[in-house]
C-alpha cells in the first residue's frame, strides 16, 4: 500500500512539473483550436447531419473491413502499386526496411503520421542505416529535441517559439540568430529542402484510403507531404487498416469535418488525393554542381507501396467495446476540448503513442492495457468531448470500460475494513481509492447517521493524514459535510405538516406536460413522450446521495419550487444511480445500481409520475449512461421519464404555471435603488448537463425571473466528481478551476448546477456557490 501512495506522490510531482513547463503553451494552443472549432462548425448548415453521415460510413467500413482490404489490394495492384498487410509493428517495419534497402535509399523523408509513430519506424530504419527526416515542422522540432509528440495533430504544441529558438541555437548554431517564428520556419524549411532533394524514398501516412480506387487522402497544411512524394521515386504510405473507406466519394463528409474538428480551420491548406503511382513526373536532382543536368523526368517510374497495419486492430474490431475506437479519424477535437488535456497536454495525458481522451482506446488496442493504465484516470467522464467528436464516439465510455478492465486486472490489495464498508460487485484487487469513491453513497449514509461525529472526525488532522496515505484523499481538499437531517427525513416532516397540500393550493396555471415545452428553447433535440393533459402532475424528486445527505438545502428548495408551481412531490427512498462506481470504472457495480434504480422507479413510472433530478451527473446517468448498462427498453423508459430540475421548471412555466410563485429579481425596485448590478447572476452549468443540451433551461428560467445571467464558456470546473479529491490530481484540479475562477472574478452571485462544481467554486472563490434552485425557490 505504501507503494501505491508513493506512486501517487510521484504522479502528483510529474503533473506539477508538466503544469509548470508545458501547461501554458498547451493551454493557449488547445483553447485556440477549440474556439476555432466552435466557429468553424457553426458555419456548417447541417453539422449534425454531416456527423451522422461520417459515423455511418465508418461503421459500415469497419463492419466490412476484411472485404475492403481485399478490394484495395486489387485496386492498388491494378494501378501498378503493392499492398502489404502487416500483422504488427515488427512486421511492418521489416517490410518498410526492405523497400528502403531495395531502393538503395540513404535518406528517407517522412511526413507526419501517428501510425508510423506507433510503429517507431524511424528507429527501425536507422537500424537499417537509412537517415530519416521528419519534414512536418512540428515533428522536425521533436526529432531535433528527441522528444515524443504531445498531441496527435500538433505534435510540438507544448513548445513555445522561444523554446524552439533555444533548441535550434543549441543544435544547429546558425550564423544568423533565429528569433521569430518566421526565422525558425525559414531555417527549418531550407534545412529540410536539402534533405528532400537528397531523399530517395518518401514516406507518408494516409488519413483515408478508398478501397475502390486505391486513392489516399492526405490532410496537411505545410505542403511537406506533397513535396516528399513529388521529389522522390519511391512512395511508401503507412496506414492503419481502419483508414479504409469503401468508395472514394465516402471521403466527402470527412473533408468538411476533419479540419474544423481539429484546428478549427474550415479546411486545411492541402487535401491531397493520390491514386499512386499517378501521372506526375518524378524529379531528378543530379547533384548540386551539375544542376543543369537535373530534370523533371519525362517518364513516370515512381514506385508505390501501401503498408496496411493491423497491430491489434482486428482484435479491436471484434471487441464490442473497443470497436468504436476504430471510427476515430484522429482529428484531436477530444483532446482540445478536454480541460485536463488543456492543462497537462499529451505528455501527461497520453500513452506510448496516442494522447487525449481517445488515446485510451488506441493504447489499449495497439499497445495493451499497461500503456492505457498510465493515463486512463485523466478522463473524468465529464463528457465535454462527446459532442465534439465528428464520428460521435462515446470517448468517456471507452475510458470507463478500460478502467474497469484495469481494475479487474489489478493485483490484489485486499483490505477488510474497506471491503466491509463497500457492498459492491468488484473483485478484491480493486484500488482502495477507487473503491472508496465508488462507494460514496454508502459513506454518505453512514456519514449522515453519525453526523456530526463523522464531520468532526473528517476534520481531525490525524484522520486526514491517514486518509491521504492509505486512500489518496488529498488532505487539502475540504470534505463534504454530512447532515444529520437528510432530505428524506425533512420531507417526511414537511409532508406531515401539509407541505404538499399547501403547494397544491397555491397552484395557478396548469402544467400540461413539461416535455412538450422542451421544444420551446433552442435547437430541435426536444423529446416527446410524456403525457399531456389536464391531470395533476406528480413528480418524484430523486434524492441522490449528495442532495440527500450533504446538499440538503438544494433538495428542500427543489421541493418548495415544484410545489409552488403546482406539482405534487414525493421523495421516496431510491437507490443510488451508480454514478459513483461508474466513474471509478466499477461497471458491474454500476450495472447493479442501475437495475435497482429501474426496479425502484417502475411503480412510479407505472403511475405516470415524472422523475425530477437535481444532480446533473445523476440525470446524465438516467438519460445517457443507462443505455450502456441496462436493456434498451428499460433504459428508454427511465430516460423518457426523467427531467433535469430546471428543464422541468421551464416546462411548467411554459405550460402556464405562475412564475410569480418563485423569487424573482424585481427590476423596478433595483432601478429605484439605482443598483444595476443586483439582478446579475453568474451561472456555471455542469459539464454533463451541457453535453445533453440542458443548461439553457436554467438560464431561460433565471431570465424569465428577471435576472441578468452571465455564463462561462470554460469547459470544466476542474473537479468532475472525485477527481479533485485525489491526491495525485488535486493540483491539476485547482489549475483547471483557475480559468473558471478568473472568468467569474468580480461576480457577486455565482450559481452552479453540479455538486462538484459548487464545491470547486466555493473553494476557489472563498465564497459560497449555490445551486440556482436555492436562489429562486419561495422561502
Amino acid at each position, binding site marked *: 500500500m505504501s507503494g501505491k501512495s508513493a506512486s501517487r506522490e510521484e504522479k502528483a510531482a510529474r503533473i506539477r512539473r508538466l503544469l509548470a513547463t508545458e501547461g501554458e503553451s498547451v493551454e493557449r494552443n488547445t483553447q485556440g483550436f477549440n474556439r476555432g472549432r466552435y466557429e468553424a462548425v457553426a458555419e456548417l448548415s447541417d453539422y449534425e447531419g454531416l456527423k451522422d453521415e461520417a459515423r455511418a460510413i465508418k461503421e459500415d467500413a469497419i463492419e466490412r473491413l476484411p472485404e475492403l482490404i481485399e478490394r484495395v489490394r486489387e485496386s492498388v495492384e491494378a494501378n501498378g502499386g503493392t499492398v502489404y498487410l502487416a500483422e504488427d509493428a515488427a512486421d511492418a517495419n521489416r517490410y518498410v526496411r526492405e523497400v528502403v534497402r531495395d531502393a538503395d535509399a540513404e535518406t528517407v523523408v517522412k511526413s507526419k503520421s501517428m501510425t508510423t509513430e506507433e510503429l517507431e519506424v524511424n528507429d527501425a530504419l536507422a537500424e537499417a542505416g537509412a537517415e530519416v527526416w521528419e519534414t512536418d515542422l512540428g515533428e522536425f522540432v521533436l526529432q531535433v529535441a528527441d522528444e515524443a509528440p504531445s498531441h496527435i495533430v500538433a505534435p510540438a504544441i507544448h513548445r*513555445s517559439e522561444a523554446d524552439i529558438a533555444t533548441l535550434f541555437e543549441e543544435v544547429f548554431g546558425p550564423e544568423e540568430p533565429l528569433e521569430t517564428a518566421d526565422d525558425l*520556419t525559414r531555417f527549418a524549411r531550407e534545412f529540410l529542402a536539402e534533405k528532400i532533394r537528397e531523399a530517395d524514398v518518401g514516406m507518408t501516412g494516409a488519413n483515408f484510403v478508398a478501397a475502390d480506387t486505391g486513392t489516399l487522402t492526405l490532410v496537411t497544411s505545410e505542403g511537406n507531404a506533397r513535396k516528399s512524394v513529388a521529389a522522390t521515386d519511391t512512395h511508401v504510405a503507412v496506414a492503419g487498416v481502419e483508414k479504409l473507406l469503401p468508395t472514394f466519394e465516402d471521403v466527402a463528409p470527412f473533408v468538411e469535418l476533419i479540419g474544423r474538428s481539429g484546428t478549427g480551420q474550415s479546411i486545411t491548406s492541402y487535401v491531397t488525393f493520390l491514386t499512386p503511382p499517378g501521372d506526375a513526373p518524378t524529379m531528378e536532382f543530379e547533384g548540386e554542381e551539375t544542376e543543369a543536368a537535373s530534370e523533371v523526368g519525362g517518364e513516370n517510374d515512381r514506385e508505390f507501396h501501401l503498408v496496411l497495419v493491423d497491430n491489434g486492430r482486428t482484435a479491436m474490431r471484434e471487441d464490442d467495446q473497443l470497436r468504436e475506437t476504430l471510427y476515430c479519424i484522429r482529428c484531436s477535437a477530444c483532446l482540445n476540448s478536454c480541460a485536463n488535456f488543456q492543462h497537462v497536454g499529451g505528455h501527461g495525458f497520453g500513452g506510448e503513442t496516442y494522447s487525449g481522451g481517445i488515446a485510451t482506446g488506441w493504447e489499449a488496442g495497439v499497445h495493451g492495457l499497461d500503456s492505457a493504465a498510465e493515463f486512463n484516470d485523466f478522463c473524468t467522464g465529464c463528457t465535454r468531448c462527446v459532442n465534439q467528436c465528428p464520428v460521435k464516439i462515446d470517448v468517456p465510455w471507452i475510458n470507463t470500460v478500460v478502467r474497469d478492465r484495469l481494475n479487474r486486472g489489478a493485483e490484489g490489495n485486499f483490505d477488510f475494513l474497506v471491503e466491509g464498508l463497500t457492498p459492491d460487485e468488484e473483485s478484491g484487487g480493486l484500488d482502495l481509492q477507487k473503491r472508496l469513491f465508488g462507494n460514496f453513497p454508502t459513506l454518505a449514509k453512514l456519514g449522515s447517521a453519525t453526523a456530526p461525529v463523522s464531520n468532526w472526525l473528517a476534520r481531525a488532522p490525524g484522520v486526514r493524514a491517514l486518509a491521504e496515505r492509505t486512500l489518496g484523499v488529498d488532505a487539502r481538499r475540504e470534505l463534504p459535510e454530512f447532515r444529520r437531517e437528510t432530505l428524506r427525513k425533512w420531507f417526511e416532516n414537511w409532508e406531515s405538516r401539509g407541505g404538499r397540500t399547501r403547494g397544491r393550493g397555491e397552484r395557478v396555471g396548469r402544467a400540461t406536460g413539461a416535455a412538450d415545452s422542451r421544444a420551446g428553447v433552442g435547437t430541435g433535440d426536444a423529446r416527446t413522450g410524456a403525457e399531456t393533459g389536464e391531470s395533476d402532475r406528480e413528480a418524484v424528486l430523486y434524492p441522490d446521495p449528495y442532495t440527500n445527505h450533504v446538499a440538503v438545502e438544494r433538495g428542500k428548495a427543489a421541493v418548495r419550487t415544484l410545489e409552488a408551481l403546482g406539482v405534487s412531490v414525493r421523495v421516496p427512498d431510491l437507490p443510488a444511480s451508480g454514478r459513483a462506481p461508474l466513474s471509478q470504472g466499477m461497471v458491474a457495480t454500476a450495472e447493479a445500481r442501475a437495475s435497482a434504480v429501474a426496479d425502484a422507479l417502475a411503480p412510479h413510472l407505472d403511475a405516470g409520475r415524472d422523475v425530477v433530478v437535481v444532480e446533473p451527473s445523476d440525470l446524465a446517468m438516467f438519460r445517457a449512461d443507462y443505455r450502456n448498462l441496462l436493456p434498451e427498453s428499460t433504459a428508454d423508459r427511465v430516460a423518457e421519464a426523467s427531467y433535469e430540475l430546471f428543464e422541468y421548471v421551464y416546462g411548467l412555466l411554459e405550460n402556464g404555471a405562475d412564475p410569480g410563485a418563485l423569487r424573482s429579481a424585481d427590476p423596478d425596485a433595483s432601478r429605484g435603488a439605482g443598483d444595476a448590478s443586483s439582478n446579475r447572476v453568474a451561472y456555471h452549468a455542469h459539464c454533463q448537463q451541457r453535453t445533453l443540451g440542458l443548461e439553457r433551461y436554467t438560464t431561460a428560467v433565471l431570465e424569465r425571473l428577471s435576472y441578468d445571467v452571465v455564463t462561462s464558456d470554460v469547459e470544466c470546473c476542474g473537479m468532475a466528481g472525485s477527481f479533485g479529491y485525489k491526491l495525485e490530481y488535486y493540483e491539476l484540479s485547482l489549475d483547471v478551476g483557475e480559468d473558471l475562477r478568473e472568468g467569474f472574478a468580480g461576480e457577486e452571485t455565482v450559481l452552479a448546477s453540479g455538486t462538484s462544481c459548487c464545491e470547486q467554486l466555493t473553494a476557489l472563490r472563498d465564497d459560497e456557490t449555490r445551486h440556482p434552485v436555492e436562489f429562486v425557490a419561495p422561502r
Partner: protein
Amino acid sequence: MTTTDLVRRFEREATDAGCEVRRTSAENFRHVVSELLEPPAVGAPLPFDGVSLPESVETNPTAADLEAAATGVTPVRFAVADYGSVAVESTAAGEEAASLFPARHVAVLAAGDVVADMPAGIERLGDVVRAGGDAVLATGPSATADMGELVLGAHGPREVCVVVLEDR
C-alpha cells in the same frame, strides 16, 4: 446559383483563406498575369481557349529551375466556391511541382469551373481519381503553426493568386 454568384462566393472565401483573386477576360489575361509574375517563373501550359502564358514562363522546367523559381503559374481544374479551394491536378506537364515549389503560386481558373460546395467538388475529383489522376485541393498558402505562431509559406507557397477568366 449563377456563374457570377459562384465566382463571387469563391472570391470571398479564397480571399478569406489568404489568396489574392483577380478577375479578367481571356483577352486581358497576359497583362494581368504579367503583373503577377516575379521572375524567374515556371509553369504548365494553360488549356483555356485563347489563353497562353508569357514567353518568360519556363514550361519545361528542370528540377533546378523549379527550386530557383519565384513564381509558378498553373491551370486549375476547378474550384469549390464554399471553401475558396482550387483543385490542382498532377499531370505529366508538372502542375503539381510548379504550384508547390515556388514561393508564389498563380492559379488560373475558368469561371465556368467553379462548383458550389464540397459534395460537388468531390464528385469532380471522383472523375479525376477514377481516371487514375492525382489532385490537390489547395486552399490559401501553405502554413504552419508549429513554430509557436502562424507562419505562411511553410514548405509550399507563401502567396497564392487566383486569376479567374470570367469569359471561360
